[in-house]
């Protein structure tokens, strides 16, 4: 195993060397970084040229200069990598250190959302193969597949951000909208649930009714201006989460798991007030993290107290329930921040921005307000990226699950008389996840490399912006710095994907013969 990893790393090193050499020379021969200086009328032009030449070692021919650059990169092994200087005099390492977190923040939420949504919808479409839901989702995913992100972004800015901001000026949902949202959610849920015609209409009625009531209530009570969940709703939602998670994870038949997760759901109302006290008085990432740890520890103990045998799955169920219902508390806190956030001068009741990564005018230092500001700025890019990338997951998880469902071991599982839940969740879903996991890893690396367009549309200054800057200004070190990060990420992601594959699927061995 170790030998396999080392050998792969060696090969990857050679590959990185080769591709960076190609790119360096390709970029170097195609433009002269001094061209704009040579044309300028600045009196100390010659001095500037000379200093830039010295700084960027432009007197060395590109193939040789590449090795000077490489020498700096090799500093990575002694913990001191030198990415060189960029044209404006700052070090590339510094710019990269500023840009990488921005890009990761931009794509992280979207990737996670896309994965979760895509896989769940993909699985439902596979289980309801050839249903109307399947066909419509197939169409939707193909449509998303074919959308250029820059085009979607402009549409979202116009129709989602600006009209939502306009709507907030007078937050009354028109009747027509209520009806169409109710119809849509009715059809959506009814087609997911499926079943006989009777169940279809019952689900349709229930979902449409709930949606219509909720929206009317929100609209009349001014909820959009001052949203909150409150302890009662949190309790109700937590109990719902407890039932859902238990059903998916071990099945409602497992009473110990159900009790444990219901207890965790009930606890959410107990620590509603203490948690809000902490949120108000000690707001920081650390305290949120510590509270998450405490919740998970409690969940583990509760689950162990309720269970005698087969503790693993029960602990898992309780921890997931606890985590999700604690997440509701944080969402509630953000909702409570919504009103003060909108009342700040910088926002002034137009909370969804179309561009940028934070409001520069926002002078509040409040932890929650600044965080909410980040969230609202993330909103549009996240929606755009999710829309575009979840289509792939739908298609892929649908295809994989259908293939898995055709396998002999699924037939065996059914023949043994296992419940449909066990067959799907334990036998089929886990096997579906094997190829999906590897895809996710590679995809994430790819998304970071491909954030160039998203960043430029939404005016974020991350890696893509640096890359653009490097390309337009013939700033070789900057360009190569970005390339080095993205290429290493994609190479490492491929390696991790291979290792994961062999870890998840015992039939595949790495390092043996190949």
């Amino acid at each position, binding site marked *: 195993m170790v030998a396999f990893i080392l050998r792969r790393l060696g*090969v990857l090193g050679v590959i990185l060397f080769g591709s960076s050499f*190609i790119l360096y020379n390709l970029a170097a021969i195609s433009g002269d970084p001094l061209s704009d200086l040579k044309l300028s009328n600045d009196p100390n032009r010659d001095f500037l040229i000379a200093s830039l030449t010295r700084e960027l070692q432009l007197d060395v021919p590109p193939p040789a200069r590449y090795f000077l650059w490489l020498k700096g990169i090799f500093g990575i092994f002694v913990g001191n990598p030198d990415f060189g200087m960029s044209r404006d005099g700052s070090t590339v390492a510094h710019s990269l250190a500023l840009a990488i977190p921005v890009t990761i923040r931009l794509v992280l939420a979207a990737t996670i959302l896309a994965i979760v949504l895509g896989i769940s919808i993909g699985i*439902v479409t596979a289980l309801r193969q050839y249903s109307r839901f399947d066909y419509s989702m197939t169409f939707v995913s193909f449509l998303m597949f*074919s959308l*250029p992100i*820059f085009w979607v972004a*402009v549409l979202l800015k116009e129709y989602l951000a600006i009209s939502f901001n306009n709507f907030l000026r007078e937050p009354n949902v028109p009747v027509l909208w209520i009806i169409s949202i109710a119809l849509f959610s009715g059809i959506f849920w009814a087609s997911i649930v499926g079943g006989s015609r009777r169940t279809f209409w019952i689900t349709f009625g229930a979902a449409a009714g709930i949606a219509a009531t909720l929206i009317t209530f929100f609209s009349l009570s001014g909820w959009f201006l001052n949203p909150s969940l409150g302890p009662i709703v949190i309790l109700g939602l937590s109990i719902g989460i407890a039932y859902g998670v238990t*059903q998916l994870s071990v099945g409602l038949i497992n009473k110990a798991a159900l009790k444990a997760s219901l207890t965790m759901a009930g606890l959410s109302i107990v620590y509603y007030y203490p948690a809000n006290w902490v949120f108000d008085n000690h707001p920081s990432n650390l305290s949120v993290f510590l509270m998450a740890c405490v919740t998970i520890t409690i969940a583990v103990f509760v689950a162990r107290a309720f269970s005698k045998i087969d503790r693993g799955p029960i602990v898992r169920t309780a921890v997931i329930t606890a985590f999700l219902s604690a997440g509701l508390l944080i969402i509630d806190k953000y909702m409570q921040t919504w009103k003060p956030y909108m009342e700040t001068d910088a926002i002034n009741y137009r909370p969804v921005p179309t561009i940028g990564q934070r409001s520069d005018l926002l002078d509040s230092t409040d932890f929650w307000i600044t965080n909410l500001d980040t969230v609202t700025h993330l909103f549009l890019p996240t929606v755009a990226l999710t829309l575009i990338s979840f289509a792939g997951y739908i298609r892929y998880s649908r295809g994989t699950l259908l293939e898995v469902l055709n396998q002999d071991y699924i037939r065996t599982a059914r023949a043994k008389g296992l419940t449909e839940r066990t067959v799907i969740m334990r036998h089929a879903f886990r096997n579906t996840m094997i190829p999906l996991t590897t895809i996710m890893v590679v995809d994430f690396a790819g998304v970071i490399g*491909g954030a160039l367009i998203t960043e430029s549309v939404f005016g974020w200054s991350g890696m893509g912006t640096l890359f653009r800057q490097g390309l337009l200004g013939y700033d070789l070190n900057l360009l190569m710095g970005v*390339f080095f990060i993205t290429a290493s990420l994609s190479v490492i992601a491929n390696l991790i994907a291979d290792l994961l594959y062999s870890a998840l699927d015992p039939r595949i061995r790495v390092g043996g013969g190949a």
Partner: protein
Amino acid sequence: MIFKKKNSVDTSASTSGENAIANKEVEGLSQSQIVRRRFFRHRAAVISLGVISFITVFVFTALDFRFLGIWHVNGWWKWSPQDIPDLRFGDCPNDTVGCPTISLRPKFMGGSGFGFGDHPFGQDDIGRDFFALVMKGTQRSLSVMIVIGTIGASIGTVVGAISGFYRGKVDAILMRFTDFIITIPAIIIGSVVGYHFGNLGAMFLAFYLGLFAWTGLSRLVRGEFLTLREREFVDAARVAGASNRRIIFKHILPNAVGVIIVSVTLLMSGAILLETALSYIGFGVVEPDVSLGLLINKYQDSFTTRPWLFWFPGLFIISIALSINFIGDGLRDAFDPRQRRRISKKERQESATARKLAQAND
């Protein structure tokens, strides 16, 4: 609930009935006939095929066509992208200028009937006919797509075929070379190439992009060749004295053509999005040439006042990419031997009745 008990376990009788129906259908047909039949049964794919052919013909005949100054064909559209007719103003909504004249609402519904008018897609800020510009841009994007597809397909197939067929050292070298290219994210190599060579013309850009677009395909083809070369028909061909070249091109390649065609269609739909994206961020096709991405980039700020400058190029990108994706899906279904058509209830009943009758007769 999702996991409600349902009749997902086919009884053996109905399965064998389905098999019987499926088998009966392909009786006495050649492979390509089966594939063609399956493809034409995929409704979305057939519609998409129609749409894409229509768009191609529509777009390429719209404008004047010149080839090296010798061959000259007049297009059916009156304006060319270079013409600067008078800006239309006065009768546009919200005091804008150059609004589109296309009318799709028929007369009996209170519209002015189906008609193109003088400037169906409106005019840009200096009065150029936007329909002509969109036609030009679509021509560019389509030809870039085809060039990338052709180059990517040929290199990918050859590299994959050689490394899968010969295995060993050749395979190792070629696959490491593929890894070289894969490490460079497509958009990055595209930007570098596009930025520095974009001014040499769209075809040159497409050629360069094609040189980097074959990696996924070559891996697929290699995998296909690795399995196919172990099959009996390859042994038979070798015993009969066929050369390696003959085995690769005459025996294995026709069997791998399904994989190749499907992934080339996907490559092409990716290519049109890549080209438009690159042109959008300014690293692809550059002015004075026209491309759909470039048009969107240029007029995105006028979205609130003159949205047609933004809508029409986007709609063309989407309809092309969508059609190609659907065609690819149809082809995949058609080439996949495991793919079974959904047997309708009626057919199932008919086959069951037939079986019962047969049993009764016994």
